[in-house]
């Protein structure tokens, strides 16, 4: 009984570690600098993460209303990073809620 529980716990822990490693490996960096997203277009696989880093001296707020991949990264102060998982296949239009000149396309494959 104890062994079974231990084995299950270890397996779960390993799964969590593996998932974390997998997520880290599949994280795509996007910078927000000069009131622009860079790169302006990226491709990711379903379930992968995009890490939005604010490299500006102003606050940003990345968001998307594209169906299946709606998100709001909320107000991001300079220097902060916000990670977003893209869940559905398709072309995702990402904008900054504050800066209308900022536009990013994420192709989720």
């Amino acid at each position: 009984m104890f062994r079974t529980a231990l084995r299950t716990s270890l397996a779960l822990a390993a799964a969590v570690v593996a998932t974390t490693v997998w997520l880290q490996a599949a994280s795509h960096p996007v910078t927000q600098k000069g009131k622009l997203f860079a790169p302006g277009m990226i491709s990711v696989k379903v379930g992968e993460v995009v890490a939005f880093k604010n490299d500006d001296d102003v606050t940003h707020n990345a968001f998307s209303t594209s169906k299946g991949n709606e998100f709001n990264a909320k107000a991001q102060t300079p220097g902060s990073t916000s990670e977003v998982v893209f869940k559905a296949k398709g072309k995702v239009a990402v904008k900054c809620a504050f800066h209308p000149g900022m536009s990013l396309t994420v192709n989720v494959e």
Partner: protein
Amino acid sequence: MPLTAFRSTQVGPRTFVLALGVCAFGLTVALRANDGAGSSKAAVPAERVASQPFLASYTRPTTTPFPDDNAYTPEREALGRALFFDPRLSGSGWISCASCHNPGLSWGDGLPRAIGHGMKTLGRRTPTILNLAWGQAFFWDGRADTLEAQALGPIQAAGEMNLDLPTMIARIGAIDDYQALFAKAYPGEPVAPETVAKAIATFERGVISAEAPFDRWLAGDEAAISPEAKRGFVVFNTKAACAKCHSGWRFTDDSFHDIGVVGEDVGRGALLADIPSVQHAFKTPTLRDADRRGPYMHDGSVATLDAVVDFYDRGGLAARESLSNDLKPLGLTGDEKRQLLAFMRTLTSPGRSVPVPALPR
């Protein structure tokens, strides 16, 4: 909408002379860099040295962008000018675009809030249309992406010009001289809402603020603005952090922020209801001709430019969750406030008469 077509903006002899001045200034700086300690050359003014890191981003463009699908032609601009000044584009027949966007008032109306159909006061102040060829979002809340998309909004709005588009086209299309203007401007295209919007947008892209004292100083004319204004430019870019949003030669990045104006209007929040940070957010206005365009803010609630500086010095008036993170109490001294005001007044260009066209009858 791709913007690959350009029209040269006017470059007069004075601009040319000033451009030479910039070259001369650059040469002077270069020579000074190679000088020994005992140089007898004239010193670069301390205010320009302090301003140097910020100057480049404020240079005026030399061409005006037009979209590929609505390239500039003089005929389109002429048609747009007629439509802009024509009160028959309103339900009542007595409100034109120019009623609110009055060229004599830097393309605004000088009122706290606009007055629309039936003499009713609207909720927001009339924004200037200066320099919108470079705009990235239109209306106070940014609900239009292009000038073409913007142009028909106020015409149809019941509270503004109150004219439905079928009536507009029937009314304009019945005038022979308008038919001729449309045929020259958009050959092969009908008199339609789309061509009306494109013509008005073309005219508006030509509404560009003239050279101001600040521009002459930027180009090397040290006498164009006062030392106090020059110090104000540094405060603008550093301690007061105005340039975080009022950036570039238009003195706006078209960004949206809740700056703490008291009121119930959620602005951009009505378009992006699920995004808390843009509740009560409005578009950053240009500062060109600012001292001629009071009262201020989206609702005209701040009467003078002095009061605007005090407003920002306090970090806004309304304490809300959506208040911009970039807005902090500034702790400006009296001198710094005066310098900022002196600087902002250098952004006003001399008055320029604008011809009102003879309208088709």
